[in-house]
């Protein structure tokens, strides 16, 4: 009996070790994920309010998403003087094929998002000033509101100034403000989804 016990323990041990070590199969990779956080392409679309066929576009692209390759701003924004434009966006993650429309997600969660702008002082007749990044209450032509009645900015109206401007700046910041978006929340509240600075020319 005693002998049996000895062999029993040794056998148990060896069995235990072999069971865990016998197979050397490949590890299964993680499942493919639908990346929702990454934005690779942002297109600004300025549409002339009086003539929908008059469209000005400007693109920013970060082709490798989170990788070390830097963002590139592909175009300047070239607007005409004294015109009214409606600004909308095409926001996408093109790391996936087909690409992901992030704009639709922002619309679905518009009570957590707000666009903020800063630009060369008095580049526009309306809104006047230099935008609302520095102070959220500064004038800005939001066309849309969320369910709580706060501005979103997926659509904004811009009346260019009569004076020409060359090599000005136009900065757009999309802030993600879950649970903290209020009537007074500003460009430093919440987290930045994108923060892009374009060269602005008004001729």
């Amino acid at each position, binding site marked *: 009996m005693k002998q049996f*016990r*000895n062999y029993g*323990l040794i056998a*148990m*041990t060896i069995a*235990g*070790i072999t069971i*865990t*070590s016998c197979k*050397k199969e*490949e*590890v*299964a*990779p*993680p*499942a*493919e*994920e*639908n*990346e*929702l*956080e*990454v*934005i*690779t392409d*942002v297109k600004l679309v300025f549409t002339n309010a009086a003539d929908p066929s008059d469209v000005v576009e400007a693109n*920013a692209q*970060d082709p*490798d*998403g*989170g*990788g*070390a*390759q*830097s*963002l*590139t701003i592909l175009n300047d924004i070239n607007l005409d003087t004294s015109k009214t434009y409606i600004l909308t966006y095409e926001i996408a993650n093109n*790391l*996936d094929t087909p690409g992901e429309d992030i704009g639709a*997600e922002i619309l679905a*969660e518009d009570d*957590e998002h707000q666009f903020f702008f800063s630009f060369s002082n008095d580049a526009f007749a309306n809104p006047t000033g230099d935008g609302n990044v520095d102070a959220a209450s500064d004038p800005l032509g939001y066309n849309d509101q969320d369910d709580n009645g706060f501005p979103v900015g997926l659509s904004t109206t811009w009346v260019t100034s009569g004076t020409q401007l060359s090599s000005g700046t136009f900065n757009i*910041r999309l802030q*993600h403000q*879950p*649970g*903290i978006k209020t009537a007074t929340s500003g460009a*430093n*509240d*919440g*987290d*930045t*989804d*994108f*923060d*892009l600075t374009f060269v602005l020319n008004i001729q």
Partner: protein
Amino acid sequence: MIFKGHIGDVSFAKWLILLIISMFISHLGMTQSNDCNYSVSGMVFDQETKEPLPFVKIKLKNSPKGGYTDSKGKFFIGGLCSEKDSLLVTCDGYCDLLCGGNHEKNEPLPIYLAQEVQDLGPVQVVGEYHKEEGTQSISQVNISQKEIKNAPTKSLADLLSGQEGVSMISAGANVQLPVIHGLHGNRILILNNGLKHGFQNWGSEHAPEIDISSANSITVIKGATGVRFGPEALGGTIIVNPNPLDLNNPLGLEIGTGFQTNGLGMHSTLNLEQGVEKWSYFLNAGFTKIGDRSTPSYIMTNSGKEEKSVNIGVRYHSKKWDFRAYYGYVDQNLALLRSSVAESGNAFVYAVNSDRPTFIRPFSYAINEPNQLTQHQMGKAEVNWHYSDRAKLSFISGIQLNKREEYDVRRDVALPIIDLELLTTDYQLNWHHPKWFKLDGLIGIQVFRQENINNPGTQTTPFIPNYRSMRYSAFITETRKFNNSSLELGARVDYESNSVAGRETSQDIFRDDFEFTNATASIGYIQKISENTVFRTNLGTAWRTPNMAELFSFGQHGFKSSFGLLRYYWNSTNGLRTDKVIPLNESSVSPERGYKFTNELKIIKKKHQHTFTAYSHYIENYIFDRPMAVIGTIRGPMPVFVFDQTNAFFAGADYSWKANWTKSISGVTRLSYLWSWNVTSNETLINQPPASISQKFIWKQKGFCKVKSSELSVEGGYTFTQFQAPRTIAPEELIDGTLELTSESEIFDFKDAPDGYFLLNISWKLDWKHFSTGISATNVLNQSYRDYLNEMRYFSDEIGVNVLFTFNYRFKAKKKSK
């Protein structure tokens, strides 16, 4: 009067040997009148701390009578019928607390007192308590159950960080990792219940899921213990010992509750234990809930915690066999400071430059994003076979399932951003061989397997790939004793293979397979210089494979973008590129390898005890995270960090002085200092613990009225500023491009190391019948300060004053007469 101090079986004692507990048996008297009117009484002390030992089992050899020492270490056994008897003082309940389950024979360290005890003065019997084989020549500290019970709402790291040489690195009030001599994470091995705690051990934001209120004692070994415990024990080992499952232990029930003012936290525990002749069991359950903590001037929004734990164990013991089974479960929901979320360069600049956190809300128990949900389950079976008096074979098998979900502030808050399952299995076979050419030793083989799986549905590319690690190890440690010295030698071989499969952000699959074989060795020497002085020296090596985060991190995590060792390279024009995953075999990545030399001088006198530890540690291929560049991203300019390897050198000293000024007043002085250096690039390292000093005074009062005892302690500790911190570069300087960084740039940090700070803690405890109660106040002066090793120091102050009230009820059944 005859006194015979004898410590068990000699060879048994030898492999139990080290750190010294001694007992004073004083005022031992037997009164003589009627037949059954003899009595014996005495007191048992810990030689190290000079504190009385409560709950030490006292038995009489030829009588069913027996008992335990009370909370003051006193015992009294009355109603004895014989003048002649032998007294057995077993360390159950105390030594076991410290020794783990090493009293297999259940008759360890008995002291036989022969008859004719009339007027015995204090007698010092030097019993010795168990240190793990292969670590006996290394400096170590113990935290007893008593100390654990005084701070039930603390984390493991917070509890240990008061000890000399031990500090903690943290990501806020809930996520805290122990640091030993400047090293943390998977350079410190955490052995929970004899098993390497299998958890997501990477970065400073993953803390071990261990509820300290279930621990019986905790040992910190401050040297390289790679030989005994395996890779990763590079900087030291923390051993969390469970309930010892004592046999012949009458039913004991303990209920404890606690309430703390900061965070309006509550805590409760239940502990049940019983042992009969061949069986014993324990059950332990704990619950902690804490709301938002506060600094002296504001609420730390989203800093609460919820923790539940259950531990059970059973033991069966026969003459030669001992079987044990344990199960442990911990469930945690840990909040991370809301203001620490800064997912763009601008937000980070804003948060770092702001005096107050950017997000402050009224107090709440709610835990919102960012937070971590973890569940850890552990099952373990252990068989010990004492096939002879001088040898034993033990087999341990364990399985651990660690589930972790991390939530971040993002568009899909309802989905975890990290969702991992880590399955760890462990087999260990150890042989305490019989004495062989005067050598005592332990020979073991181990098989360790770990498999990590990303659960689908995070809507983000996994930060850590799926992987499977297998490790086969064999080790031997031998001790040779001489008259006043002993020599300890150890060697180990590990073979490790890793198989990895992950996703790139394009969702393309990458794979890698790599293996390492490593040999490590250690040598230690203990010299008893005089009656009161012992010198220990140990040179140990250890190694570890880079962890998966160090190898494969990719992209944004928190406020920075990080790239693992295999995810970036420099192209021909010295540009940082991340467009491919480099196979490990084609890279220059090597495992870390450490050489640690620790020396300890211990002077133990009746009133004073000094422990001086000096160490130096050289680590080859030391892996660290360093800022490297600023890149433009869609979220704005973002600091980029990469993992890098270098050779690093650490040197430091710890000192502790315990003094018994009078019978009732004692003091403890502690000092820690560490100097560290990046040898390759000749610059400082980052996130190293600053020097600290503390002084504690303890005033014990003996019983008054119906109170058994009370203890008041006052502790003041000063933590210095880190003089060795890297230069500071404000994030805005990087973002606006004023500063260009290259691969050769000197290391930097975003904020100056915080100023030194002084903290005052006061606590008071009282024992009354079955009850004990305590009030302990930390940061009594309500200091506003920031801690260099807390990642949240960029955003928020530390916790202000906190008063913790504890109340415990302890019931112990009387031992049945046979």
